[in-house]
């Protein structure tokens, strides 16, 4: 049991940090531009595929730097030539633009790299067990992922607190309309922020790619969860996104570890009741519903605390 708890905590934190790498960019973009970027997870996927391709050409370590930058450039292009032109049609149009983009990116990726998973491997330098807990190996690469996530997290904090762009971003988080009214002056900041947000997603892709499966549907697998994270944490709140990421990471991993169902707690239902949705609910285990727990949480949060955990704004 102790083993399960230790491993699940590690895994949960790791998954949570990965979620945070993605949701931080999404949150900042949303706060500043009011755009919920549907294509954010697609940038994550692009990062993984760029990382894969560059790893084959120039090795993992250069790829770790270059691939996120490339994704950032793609993101800036999307902002400059797409979103900026759509802005006049309102936020819904912007959101729909990114929606269409997510569609297109998925197809482009599967067109170029195929629909099967690509062979994106953990670099040899990190392909060893870092330590062993209760006879379970914990791979060094996962520790590496954890370290990168934490470093980025700290870097993000410092940037936000210490730089001019950071100050503008912070202003945007608390007074979005004010920054919005600054209008043209922040055009470049928007582009930069969008680029950085995309690059962060790209970085998450580069480091998650070898650990998870790099495949053209990986964006669709993670995308909806991201929205849960940022709504759950409170739209526009970075600390909220952080807590929500960790919480959802932990909930998902721990739920899997549990076997409990209503039947195991209260005993099986009378068989004479026959098959009905009640028996389905009664017999389903927590592990079975682990991946839908985030959505359940989302709905509950929106009912009882519509602004999310740490949010201050309602929309």
């Amino acid at each position, binding site marked *: 049991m102790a083993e399960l708890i230790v491993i699940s905590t590690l895994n949960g934190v790791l998954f949570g940090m990965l979620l945070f790498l993605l949701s931080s960019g999404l949150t900042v973009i949303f706060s500043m531009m009011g755009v919920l970027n549907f294509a954010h997870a697609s940038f994550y996927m692009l990062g993984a595929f760029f990382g894969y391709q560059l790893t084959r050409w120039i090795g993992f370590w250069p790829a770790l730097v270059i691939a996120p930058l490339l994704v950032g450039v793609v993101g800036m292009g999307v902002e400059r030539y797409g979103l900026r032109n759509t802005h006049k049609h309102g936020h819904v149009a912007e959101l729909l633009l990114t929606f269409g983009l997510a569609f297109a990116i998925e197809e482009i990726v599967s067109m170029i790299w195929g629909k099967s998973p690509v062979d994106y491997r953990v670099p040899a330098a990190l392909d060893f067990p870092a330590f062993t807990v209760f006879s379970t190996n914990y791979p060094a690469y996962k520790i590496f992922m954890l370290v990168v996530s934490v470093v980025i997290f700290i870097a993000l904090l410092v940037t936000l607190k210490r730089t001019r762009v950071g100050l503008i971003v912070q202003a945007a988080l608390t007074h979005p309309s004010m920054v919005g009214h600054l209008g043209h002056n922040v055009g470049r900041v928007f582009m930069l922020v969008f680029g950085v947000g995309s690059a962060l997603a790209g970085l998450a892709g580069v480091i998650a790619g070898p*650990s998870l499966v790099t495949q053209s549907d990986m964006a669709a697998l993670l995308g909806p969860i991201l929205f849960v994270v940022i709504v759950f944490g409170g739209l526009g709140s970075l600390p909220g996104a952080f807590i929500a990421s960790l919480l959802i990471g932990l909930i998902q991993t721990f739920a899997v570890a549990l076997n409990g169902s209503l039947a195991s707690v209260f005993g099986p239902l009378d068989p004479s009741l026959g098959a009905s949705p009640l028996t389905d609910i009664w017999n389903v285990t927590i*592990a*079975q519903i682990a991946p839908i727990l985030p959505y359940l949480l989302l709905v509950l949060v929106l009912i009882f605390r519509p602004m999310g955990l740490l949010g201050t704004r309602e929309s």
Partner: protein
Amino acid sequence: MRKLIVAAAAALTVLGGAASAQETIKIGYIDPLSGGGASVGEGGLKTFQYLADELNAKGGILGHKVEIVPLDNKTNPQESLVQAQKAVDAGIHYITQGNGSSVGAALEDFVTKNNSRNPGKEVLYFNYAAVDPSMTNEKCSYWHFRWDANSDIKMAALTNYMKGQPSIKKVYLINMDYSFGQSVRSEARKMLGEKRPDIQIVGDELHPMLKVADFSPYIAKIKASGADTVVTGNWGQDFALLLKAAADAGLKVNWYTYYAGGSGGPTAIKQTGLDHQVFQISEGIPNSGNKAAMDFEKDFRAKTGISVWYPRAVNEMRMFKAAAEKANSIDPVKVAAALEGMKFEVFDGGDGFMRKDDHQFFQPIIISSFGTLADKAKEPFDEENTGWGWHPVSKIDTDQTMLPTTCNMKRP
């Protein structure tokens, strides 16, 4: 409204062209060609196109050329029905499909209804990979023929093999949470209980299908349970991710799988370094030792760039030809009658037959393991350029795979 007519007219040009189907035998290939399942669907399409070319090179079927008509169903049952209807509307009398039991069940239902409502426009459904047992049991249809062993048959074969492996003591079951995964799990419990009551089932997991990004928590559970063997019906990313997580955590168990050989599977196994620890139940493997099959494999790989993942498709197409010749007709009603009870030597050698009672094809089942190939001359084929390949471990004879059916066949 004028627009509607224009659009409809345009639609017709796409959907039409029903005539002139008499010359060639068109087989509607209904499987995913876009979206998540496309890689699997495309492999199947290449296989069938290769097989059609093979038939045509030898003069086709009764002088008719065979053409495969690809119909993209996006692995969606509803879309499959649209595509099936499209096929019917285009005068196609044979459809074949494999991916997704939900699609299979929908198509089976479709052909049954279609054939009873539209006499003279009968359609046969050749199933090459949908393995839900119910399709040849309670839901069975006269118009459906299955060449793949259903999941219960495979489990029967597998447990017959496991029966003779005393090293297996603790088994963990992990499966995708849908009908196929559930039948794997319940049959494994049932059959192991009958054949090896001493084996302990230490875990029984159902996880949501294609939704899990990180399997390490599941692996932690398997590890904690002390299992020495894992039985799983997982396929696609759910298989690859499961294995990856296992390798990361250093889990050393034997894996008995249904679909380890599926697209991406061999790559994942190679990455994890589980040499000959992953087993697969299938009706054929590239390194089967059968000369004809291995020649076929060689040519197939050269032409398509993929390995023969569907020996059953070969059986299906060749048997279709034999049945048509036996009936001396390409009329689906007559072909169906000819197929019933038909005996046939299967691709990798050995006898198979299409059971009349439920239209399930029975054939020898091979248990194989994946890893380094010791004798490159005898076992020349690797998978996905990994250098590793399938090695036959055991062959279960046809009669050892027989299971009763509850099918109450309604014949026209």
